[in-house]
């Protein structure tokens, strides 16, 4: 399918520092790919290298199996949507959207028609003559999207497109992005630092850290089996535990993770079957979070373990601050990290 993106040993050096360190990545055409990671992990740089706004220090970038490493942004057939949209403040929305066509040499009538269609698509037809400064954040975002789409790119690159919006709008725009992507069948590569956003959108999520890819795959696979300690910590909902001779079998060395919702809290006197691991802990904090309770406990060796208790399983008498409890989990719930990945 058109719109596939492939990165081969792609590297970016800034003053000797490896901002992107030889990453390999294959994004199938028509997929929604999210680059996820904390700030400074190299995800924006990767995106900008794909767009052609950043020169590649080493390695190659392939679009549709075509090596575009040395091509200009326009020649690549990508389109970028910028973090703060970068709408030209002196041009009307219609002119902003039509700009790419103007550059391509299209006549005024023709490009305005195309721009109006595009504005229609993002339901912004009423705002064609407004200047960007007169629009709200969400409206600006749609204009920016329309501008990115006007040249019929195969790959749309979005740099933190939702970060400037308030939480409510963010969720709404997220849905619109996804449905538009499906409708147009384009490849979207979306940079974000919010795992929630990535999980909601992505067919393919790529977790990055320190210029490397920690894990890539479908969000669900990542969530169920984080490959490294970093991923487990970053995507949240996982407890990373260091085995300790007094508490846990050391064959789990050096560390493993266990999902917070796969733990149960039991009174001390309950004896579990041997498929269950049992650990004693002290409850430190309980927070009500609508559908579930968030319970923070401390093991005797000082490690913190969090549990999500479904609201209907909450026992007020048992689960309260300072209470000694037993934590239970199925042995099968233990997620071992990929040792090759962790000891790199």
């Amino acid at each position, binding site marked *: 399918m058109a719109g596939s993106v492939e990165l081969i040993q792609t590297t970016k050096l800034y003053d000797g520092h490896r901002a992107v360190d030889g990453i390999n990545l294959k994004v199938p055409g028509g997929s929604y790919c999210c680059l996820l990671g904390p700030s400074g992990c190299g995800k924006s740089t990767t995106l900008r290298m794909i767009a052609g706004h950043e020169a590649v220090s080493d390695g190659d970038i392939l679009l549709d199996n075509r090596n575009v490493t040395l091509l200009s942004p*326009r020649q690549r057939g990508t*389109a970028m949507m910028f973090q703060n949209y970068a709408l030209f403040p*002196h041009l009307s929305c219609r002119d902003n959207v039509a700009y790419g066509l103007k*550059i391509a040499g299209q006549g005024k009538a023709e490009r305005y028609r195309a721009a109006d269609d595009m504005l229609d698509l993002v339901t912004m037809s009423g705002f064609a003559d407004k200047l960007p400064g007169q629009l709200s954040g969400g409206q600006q975002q749609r204009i920016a999207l329309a501008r990115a789409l006007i040249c019929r790119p195969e790959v749309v690159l979005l740099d933190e497109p939702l970060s400037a919006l308030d939480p409510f709008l963010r969720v709404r725009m997220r849905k619109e992005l996804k449905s538009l992507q499906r409708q147009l069948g384009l490849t979207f590569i979306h940079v974000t630092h919010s795992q929630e956003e990535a999980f909601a959108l992505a067919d393919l999520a790529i977790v990055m850290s320190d210029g490397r890819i920690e894990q890539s795959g479908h969000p669900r696979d990542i969530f169920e089996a984080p490959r490294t300690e970093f991923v487990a910590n970053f995507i949240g909902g996982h407890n990373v535990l260091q085995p300790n001779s007094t508490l846990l079998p050391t064959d789990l060395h050096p560390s493993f993770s266990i999902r917070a919702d796969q733990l149960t809290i039991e009174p001390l006197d309950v004896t579990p079957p041997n498929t269950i691991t049992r650990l004693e802990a002290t409850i430190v904090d309980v927070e009500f979070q609508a559908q579930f309770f968030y319970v923070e406990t401390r093991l005797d060796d000082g490690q913190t373990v969090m549990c999500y208790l479904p609201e209907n399983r909450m026992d007020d008498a048992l689960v309260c601050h300072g209470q000694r409890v037993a934590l239970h989990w199925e042995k099968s719930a233990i997620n071992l990290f990929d040792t090759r990945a962790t000891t790199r």
Partner: protein
Amino acid sequence: MARMSMAHNLHSYWQALPLTLVLLAFLVFPIAVIGIVSFWDYNSYSLIPDFMLDNYQYLLSSPVTLQAYLNTFKYAALTWFFTLSIGFTVAYFLAFHLRSTRTQTLCFVICTVPFFTSNIIRMISWIPLLGRNGLVNSTLQASGLTEQPLSFLLYSDFAVVLAYVHLYTLFMVVPIFNSMMRIDRNLVEAAVDAGASGFQIIRDIIVPLSRSGIIVGSIFVFTLVMGDFVTVKIMGGGIKANVGMMIYNEISLLQYPAAAASAIVLLATVMIMLVILFRLVDIRKEL
């Protein structure tokens, strides 16, 4: 709250007072005096209070006035064109092609240093360069490019405009650079993304967005050239004249009322042009 802002407003009045007094005493009153004196009569050594229109009548009917104004506009237009072209290019280079703020500051300071030397010294420095036996001519002759010394280099319109460009380009660079620094770099990338070439980016994005800087710079250059006479005097060798020279000549020959009338006409001209320019830009927002 209302009372507090009232108190603040009262503060504003005394805070603005020194500035206002200076402007009244040294700007408003002097211009009023010029206005009044422009209707007076005079002889070779003194002013005679009167009300007559002769000064204006002579001024407005003399072909010399027209000539002086044409010369002045010619200088202003040429200077504007060159300072804008050079200033824009330099500002563009400083703003978009230098990466670190350090190099930017350094290059900027380098451009500013000559500004701290007296204008007069900077101007006379051209003479040993451009004269008939100056450095430029000797180089040209030595290299065999010309046989005779080029005399248009000095005491000519060329020399005057050259000196203006030398003196005033910085007044263009500073505001344009200032505007350019405020352009979101993503806009440039967005344009690149849309496939715009370097030239198209400048035409479609950078020029429109540094418009206010261009206008502010133009206002500076324009008014400085319109009111100048020293440059014309030194670089024009006394042969060339503009409105400022005309006024300066009249002043030095004690024809104050005539000078005052010329000054009022010049003021009116400059003001009209500035009103037009100021319509294009809100200067307080541009700072």
